């Protein structure tokens, strides 16, 4: 079932007179950069999920918050949908434009306003890149912990909207754990501060609710993040296993030994071989699975923990355990993992990256399930896995030039996510729902839960102008989708009419 906005199931959108809107914007905001010609709009028709494209009505590139304020007030008055976008690196189509909506690009708000080493925070504009924060904090031996793989390009405003993760979440948390304060503009163009410079604020925790809300509740205008002291040292162990099950059990054994690694990653044989061919990281290509375990902190503790983890890995049946002998080898071990996606890109014309999470104990069963589905759909699947926090990234290999393969890849991806939900996991660990997983939301939540989500949205945006159609599916969409997806023989949403 197509994920592009479909008014038939996603709800009617306001009809906007482009010429009149453009004229009014130019009159009210003469210094605002507005793109309106189709050749100028083209580059903005997708985010990191490039298989799906929609040309926006207009693109605006403000440089001052006052411009955003005026724009939102105007859009609110005229009933114009607004889709906010940062760097556009999101992988779930969260910033996918609407034909009848303005794409509000916040990327020019790229100033770091303040780095306070003694207070251990940084105050930045929403278009500042994730990595730029750590770079600005580096002279003080501090850093910003969440490190999504796109950190070189992705913006902090987008990180807040998506509650971005990374490879160090088990120990250092997600974006929501590393924020102090977010300044927003409401749909009405009113300024509001969520959180504070202190560690907590009076009232409901709207900062927690807002983080990860995918641009549906307000527009981020400023972010205050926590900074942490850089770990003194980081060491990496590489362990090889002759079965994925053994590698999965080893992860549990490490945790059971009371050790929380900074990063704990697993790769299956297909990913290992692809990465090794590409990066020459020194991975054992005949292993069924490898674990990369990074331990960071104070040197003496890390040294002790390396010895402990080594022992645990051997007891868990590792065929080989290697400690990166120096920084160069550590970087090489990681390079293989960090380049696993492009490495897989070399062995297949296209690949589709999934983002389900599962309780770790379910790993062997889920991998078996994925391998069965892979066979059934006739598409190869490579598995890389944030093993520490249960976040899987199965990569579905396909060729978009072969008729029907993209659709098959999507269907297979949907089945994998439903499998994750069945074992008590989630359809998305860090990429977000956006448009990409809008149908799978119907598997994870029932009609009452979805209805409540819509009520929360309406509490912030009653006219539904902010990023319409993302994150929460309509019950009509679920009813339509449900025709293909029936639990326990019961028709979901029986109260709804069918199309």
């Amino acid at each position, binding site marked *: 079932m197509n994920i592009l906005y479909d008014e038939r199931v996603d709800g009617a959108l306001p009809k906007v007179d482009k010429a009149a809107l453009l004229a009014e914007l130019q009159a009210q905001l003469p210094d605002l950069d507005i793109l309106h010609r189709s050749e100028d709009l083209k580059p903005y028709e997708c985010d990191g999920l490039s298989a799906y494209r929609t040309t926006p009505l207009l693109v605006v590139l403000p440089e001052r918050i006052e411009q955003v304020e005026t724009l939102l007030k105007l859009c609110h008055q005229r009933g114009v949908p607004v889709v906010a976008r940062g760097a556009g690196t999101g992988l779930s189509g969260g910033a996918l434009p609407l034909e009848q909506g303005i794409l509000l690009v916040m990327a020019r708000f790229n100033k770091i306003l303040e780095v306070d080493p003694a207070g251990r925070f940084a105050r930045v504009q929403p278009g500042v890149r994730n990595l730029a924060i750590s770079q600005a904090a580096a002279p003080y031996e501090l850093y910003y912990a969440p490190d999504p793989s796109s950190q070189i390009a992705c913006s902090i405003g987008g990180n807040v909207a998506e509650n971005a*993760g990374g490879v160090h979440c088990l120990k250092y948390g997600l974006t929501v754990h590393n924020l102090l304060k977010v300044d927003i503009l409401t749909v009405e163009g009113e300024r509001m501060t969520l959180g504070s410079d202190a560690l*907590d604020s009076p009232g409901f925790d709207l900062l927690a609710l807002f983080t990860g809300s995918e641009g549906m509740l307000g527009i981020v205008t400023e972010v205050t993040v926590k900074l942490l002291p850089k770990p003194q040292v980081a060491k990496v162990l590489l362990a090889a296993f002759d079965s994925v099950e053994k590698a999965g059990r080893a992860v549990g054994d490490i945790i059971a030994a009371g050790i929380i690694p900074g990063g704990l990653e697993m790769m299956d044989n297909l990913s290992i071989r692809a990465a090794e061919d590409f990066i020459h990281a020194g991975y054992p290509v005949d292993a069924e699975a490898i674990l990369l375990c990074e331990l960071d902190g104070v040197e003496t503790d890390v040294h002790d923990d390396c010895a402990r983890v080594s022992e645990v890995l051997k007891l868990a049946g590792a065929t080989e355990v290697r400690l990166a002998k120096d920084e160069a080898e550590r970087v090489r071990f990681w390079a293989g993992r960090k380049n696993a996606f492009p490495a897989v890109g070399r062995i297949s014309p296209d690949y589709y990256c999934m983002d389900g999470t599962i309780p770790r104990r379910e790993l062997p069963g889920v991998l078996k399930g994925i391998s069965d589905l892979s066979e059934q759909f006739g598409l190869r699947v490579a598995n890389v896995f944030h093993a520490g926090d249960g976040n899987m990234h199965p990569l579905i290999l396909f060729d978009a030039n072969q008729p029907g393969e993209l659709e098959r890849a999507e269907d297979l991806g949907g089945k994998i996510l439903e499998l994750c939900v069945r074992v008590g996991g989630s359809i998305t660990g860090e990429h977000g729902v956006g448009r990409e997983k809008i149908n799978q939301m119907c598997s994870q939540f029932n009609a009452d839960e979805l209805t409540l989500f819509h009520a929360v949205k309406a509490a912030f945006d009653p006219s539904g102008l902010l990023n319409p159609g993302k994150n929460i599916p309509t019950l009509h969409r679920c009813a339509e989708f449900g025709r293909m997806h029936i639990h326990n023989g019961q028709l979901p949403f029986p109260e709804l009419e069918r199309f």
Partner: protein
Amino acid sequence: MSVIANDASAQLLDQVNQALAANTPLRIQGSGSKSFLGRQADGVLLDTREHRGLVTYDPTELVVTVRAGTPLTELEAALDAAGQMLPCEPPHFAEGATVGGMIAAGLSGPRRPWSGSVRDFVLGSRVITGQGKHLRFGGEVMKNVAGYDLSRLMAGSFGCLGVLTEVSLKVLPKPRLCTSLRLEIDLERALLKLAEWGQQPIPISAASHDGQALHLRLEGGEGSVGAARERIGGDDLDPGYWNDLREQRLAFFADPRPLWRLSLPNNTPALGLPGDQLVDWAGAQRWLKSDADAVTIRGIAVEVGGHATCFTAGATSNPIQPLSAPLLRYHRQLKAALDPQGIFNPGRMYSEV
């Protein structure tokens, strides 16, 4: 200690549906250990304590799912038996304190600035809503960004947004080594030292100044704790201090004047406050015993970017700091979305919510 298990969710749901039908407000309560906080809510008592017990706990997953009426002591004992803990060190304040009350009050103990707050460890929840539905949000996995994060929103919401019946929490292994020390330096100097240490990888897990001396707790491996202990110096401290601080059993708290909690930005300097103070959270949380009025105390906190909560029942009509006009409007709209009839603890936080 074994954990007694009983699923009373059907009765809780019944009671909510009856209240909805009769349009009568409910006063949601566990043991009442934190009922002195916030405003007093009128309504028929909804006691959560029959709904209790661990639903799932697998130490290697670092996740526990527990029913709201479970006594906190039972949860903590179960975690302790597996070498794990609730890192946010929630206060009990009285025997019988429940997990639901911990979430509703959202209070964290001395480790909070380093470990995170109660909210930071919430992964999922089950909630009875104002539509009379028993719903599930979040889950039992560390990373989950599907839908709005209603589970973390429950932390600190004083039961105003629904009846929490179950919560999934991230837990962590207990530190290998823990040592406490006392360093006789004044508050100004202590705050400067804490700002300096805060920028370095020193394994501090609690820092309090009682007016006489800085009290520190170090946690980690033998090497890091040993090195920090040597570097910082000072005398050994009875680790019981941290429990007494968390539970407000230190002599400071016996003062008959009203108790205020000031939540302030990191690195706020020593403040001249109208009364006696006890500093926790490396300066980010300051307890104040004072007869001064709410406006005076809040004025001082707001001036430096913080806020103040009154912890003594009846001392002021608005114990939780009032909200700005737009924030209050969104609080009311959110309350109306989750509790349209306004039956859950109405007025418990603010008279308008």
